[in-house]
């Protein structure tokens, strides 16, 4: 049964399963490098404007709920923990554990997105969305304050989109795992899906301090 699955999974352009696994893993890492550069453009914009308007950015950042942000960071870290345990389960051939950990990863991811949606809603309610209705209390630099929130929505928005795609990938992996497609000899999609998931977590690891923790010592 094992070798049957192994042969089925070997695509014809490859000579050996090892070559295929190495190619797939390398391919995903290169894709993640493209994602580094994709987010990188927004990090540059952030760095430029924070450098230029540090006071306003600080004031704007302080309107974000740091407790919620920190807890949400923890939630995402939990999801990375369950994800790596899912990969480990696949490595040792524990199908039930793999399924459980994939579901947990999706749940944590879902919680993260739910909290994010709540936070965004708060911003809408507080009139912190850039545009004609924008108003940030305590500063005359309303335009520059909007720059912070433009970046906030752009960066967390693009991040959230990547999370949604990630949850979709988890769903596919879940179905495949349930169907018994993954064995210690072939679990590359789980491995590679995990790489993507951890990467999206790493982006948030940087977004949290950069967006939530500017000039918090004024309190």
């Amino acid at each position, binding site marked *: 049964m094992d070798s049957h699955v192994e042969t089925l999974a070997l695509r*014809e352009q490859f000579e050996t399963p090892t070559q295929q696994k190495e*190619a797939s893993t*390398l*391919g995903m890492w*290169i894709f993640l490098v493209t994602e580094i550069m994709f987010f990188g453009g927004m990090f540059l914009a952030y760095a430029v404007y924070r450098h230029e308007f540090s006071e306003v950015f600080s004031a704007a950042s302080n309107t974000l709920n740091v407790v919620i942000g920190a807890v949400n960071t923890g939630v995402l870290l939990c999801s990375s923990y369950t994800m790596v345990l899912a990969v480990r389960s696949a490595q040792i051939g524990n199908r039930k554990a793999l399924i459980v950990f994939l579901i947990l990863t999706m749940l944590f991811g879902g919680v993260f997105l739910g909290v994010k949606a709540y936070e965004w809603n708060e911003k809408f309610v507080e009139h912190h969305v850039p545009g004609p209705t924008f108003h940030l209390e305590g500063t005359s630099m309303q335009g520059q304050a909007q*720059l912070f929130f*433009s970046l906030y929505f752009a960066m967390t928005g693009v991040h959230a989109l990547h999370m949604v795609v990630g949850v979709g990938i988890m769903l596919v992996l879940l179905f495949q795992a349930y169907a018994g497609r993954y064995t210690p000899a072939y679990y590359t999609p789980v491995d590679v899906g995990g790489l993507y998931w951890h990467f999206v977590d790493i982006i948030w690891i940087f977004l949290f301090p950069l967006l939530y923790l500017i000039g918090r010592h004024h309190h």
Partner: protein
Amino acid sequence: MITAAAQERETYLNESYGIKSWLLTKDHKRIGLLYLGTITFFFFLGGIFATLIRLELLTPKGDLVAPDTYNKLFTLHGVIMVFFFLIPSIPATLGNFFLPLMIGAKDLAFPRINLLSWYLLVIGGCFGMYAMLAGGVDTGWTFYVPYSSTYSNTYVIATGLGIFIAGFSSILTGLNFIVTVHRMRAPGMTWFRMPLFVWSNYATALIQVLGTPVIAITLVLLICERSLHIGIFDPARGGDPVLFQHLFWFYSHPAVYIMVLPGMGIISELVSTFSKKAVFGYRFVAFSSVAIAVLGFLVWGHHMFVSGQSVYAGLAFSFLSYFVAIPSAIKVFNWTATLYKGSISYATPMLYAFGFIGLFTMGGLTGLFVACLGINVHVHDTYFVIAHFHYIMVGGTLMAYLGGLHYWWPKISGRMYPEGFAKLSALTVYLGFNLTFFPQFILGYLGMPRRYWQYPDEFQVLHVMSTAGASVLAVGYLMPLIYFVWSLRYGAIAGPNPWGATGLEWQTASPPPAHNFEETPIVTTEAYDYAALEAARVG
């Protein structure tokens, strides 16, 4: 001598028939041909816009089109030629077709992603076509803000989306090539035995993967700015239009190396084959490809010397820009040294190679002029810059592409193109090109601004020369379209190796079988080992 059995031999072209077998193919050779059709379409579409531009510029008054329309003409010419023709051109057609063959692989690492990348180009192209037909876009291919984000009333978002999607086509091609070269080389095919065309596509792939995502996010931000009015580039709210330019050119400068590096790879192949000599300084040429890819990322600010960028940044970028010329020069020297005491044949591909070496050198040297801060102030946004980049893109890349198409046509189609007509069209292209673009150096130096639809009377003579050249050039480009198609039916049947060249692609049939090689090749010779080839032929 063709037997009936040979004519019924299975090739990648006849192993299956029907639209589905093409639209759902995973064969890199068929995908290369799908791309060939697509980019040829975009080339001639971009050419139509060039024609209209040159017709308008025949006379000093703006009498052919309205000024707003003129803005759309040069924008669409640039967008189509850069994003939908030049960027994909060589890697997606000749690279896709030949990279696996050259390294002895059965296909690329990810054939389905390869097919997806073609669909992405087509879908991106559809968005672009929609923008064009619905009313066009008038921001220039550079989309500078705040005009593109706030003031333009044209289809910026649709065009931006089209380029965004096409960008992913480029990224996936690059990703595929990198993994393929690292992981799928045949036994004995070490890095330094690979043809230089592979090296140049590899270096190009590095740029595609590292640079394209930045223009992707830039377009996303521009689209958000335009549709949601967020203000990220809006000066009234503290936004900095120069930030857009940094983000835009971080990709768009390396992009020009995406466009020219594969062409340089082709020239290495042509110069070697048609001198019957190994490329001089193989390792230098290989490393120079990677050096260009790396250094190309450090110079983007040279497009922004007069934008309001800081003087110190301008100094740094100008200084670094001189460095990137060095590896290109190394290539030119090595090609020349390859020719020295070679057994030179003047087949059409070689004519294109000669054209490239001369014209690319001129384009490259004029790059040094514009990299100089003082000169740049004078020639920025003039026809001098236009001439500079057309010498490289058209005199360089397009010539190399045509050379490569002619060179590999027998392998792709199993037919020879008609050599007489081909030589004539190569000559026509060369003469037409120089007549079109050399006057533009002079125009720019004399002060003719770019993107202007009317001009002072004293510039007319040079503009007339340029337009005359463009019409000759157009004929030169139409001819291959006609005779390549003609050759599919009436061309002489080509054998496996009509040029007597080294390289694994010439060891298999013309056209190749679907799975490339009857048996996985085992490589024992160095690249361009003409001595070994001669010994094998004689012995």
